[in-house]
């Protein structure tokens, strides 16, 4: 049985932990709203870009298609771009992303492919290093900026496209969390390079004769890197929203658990206090009777 003083110490320590988790929860709730708004604001651009992509990709095909769209003909070397958060305290989010990445890597290795990792964000490093230390290509650090924006996405995309053009890999996959709600963030695996041809809906531009300036291929060549950037930017925004959502839920649970623990400890504290008083009383009465 812990002494009264020890119990008091524990209660105080749990109380300060609860204060921290509570504060983090509120911060996450506020940031979540902003992150969600940012993710929503980015949607029109992505939608229009993939619309343009769809109408163009159908027209430029075959041998004339640029490498970024058609691929370089091989599928031996795979690059997994894993987008993790920079900060912890967000429940199982990073663990889930890493799990999805490892599952994908194992599946590819089982098929006899070569797999390399390109890590974005701090929290994926340690767990992936544990299993695939020699396969990690690069860490991209996003922890120095407060909210990763288009510049970061641009830097990552330029780096990736450069590596692709130098023939360092054949296919790149993007693994990132998709924000569904504060309770659910699904790790998703998408093919990034070569750009998967979007399904063109027959309605757009089917009958209209579109004038291309300078030419269809030139436009497509400019458009593809941009598309990759937009994909990465989208994944960064999703990551941000997922991190805050997961953090909010995790911290809400932690705060509640701390509350339960405090109640339990307080009951225990009061019981032992009463027990001590009773013992004292019995001692006094017994002493008085003995006289």
């Amino acid at each position, binding site marked *: 049985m812990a002494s009264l003083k020890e119990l008091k110490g524990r209660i105080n320590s749990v109380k300060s932990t609860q204060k921290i988790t509570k504060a983090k929860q509120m911060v996450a709730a506020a940031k979540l709203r902003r992150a969600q708004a940012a993710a929503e604001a980015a949607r029109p651009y992505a939608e229009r870009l993939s619309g343009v992509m769809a109408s163009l990709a159908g027209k430029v095909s075959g041998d004339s298609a640029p490498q970024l769209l058609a691929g370089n003909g091989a599928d031996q070397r795979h690059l997994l771009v894993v987008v993790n958060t920079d900060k912890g305290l967000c429940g199982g989010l990073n663990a889930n992303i890493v799990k999805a990445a490892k599952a994908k890597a194992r599946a590819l290795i089982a098929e006899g492919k070569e797999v390399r990792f390109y890590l974005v964000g701090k929290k994926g490093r340690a767990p992936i290093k544990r299993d695939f230390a020699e396969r990690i290509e690069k860490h991209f650090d996003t922890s120095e900026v407060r909210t990763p924006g288009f510049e970061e996405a641009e830097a990552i995309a330029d780096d990736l496209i450069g590596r692709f053009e130098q023939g360092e890999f054949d296919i790149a996959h993007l693994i990132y969390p998709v924000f569904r709600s504060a309770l659910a963030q699904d790790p998703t695996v998408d093919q990034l390079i070569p750009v998967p041809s979007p399904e063109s809906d027959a309605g757009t531009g089917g009958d209209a004769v579109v*004038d291309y300036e*300078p030419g269809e291929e030139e436009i497509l060549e400019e458009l593809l890197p941009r598309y990759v950037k937009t994909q990465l930017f989208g994944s960064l925004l999703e990551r941000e929203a997922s991190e805050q959502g997961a953090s909010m839920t995790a911290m809400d649970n932690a705060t509640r658990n701390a509350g339960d623990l405090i109640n339990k400890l307080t009951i225990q504290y009061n019981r032992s206090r009463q027990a001590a008083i009773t013992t004292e009383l019995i001692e006094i009465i017994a002493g008085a009777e003995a006289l």
Partner: protein
Amino acid sequence: MALRFELVTPAKLVRSEDVHMVVVPGSEGEFGVLEGHAPLMSTIRDGAVQVYKTEGAEPETIEVRGGFAEVGENGLTVLAEHVEG
């Protein structure tokens, strides 16, 4: 008679409004887009997009960097990577 004009960047939808005419800095030269323009797609160079709210009005200029302009049935869409101001 109005042209639906949309200016979109990755970060947000900057403009979505009905205007009279827009002059876009295409990579092969500037071109003006009025309502009923034939479908066109062009890359744009860094420069100013001039928006004429009404006929003969003073143009409003928006500096854009890198992107595309698309003219379709539902108006003009400019996808720019950066917009200044």
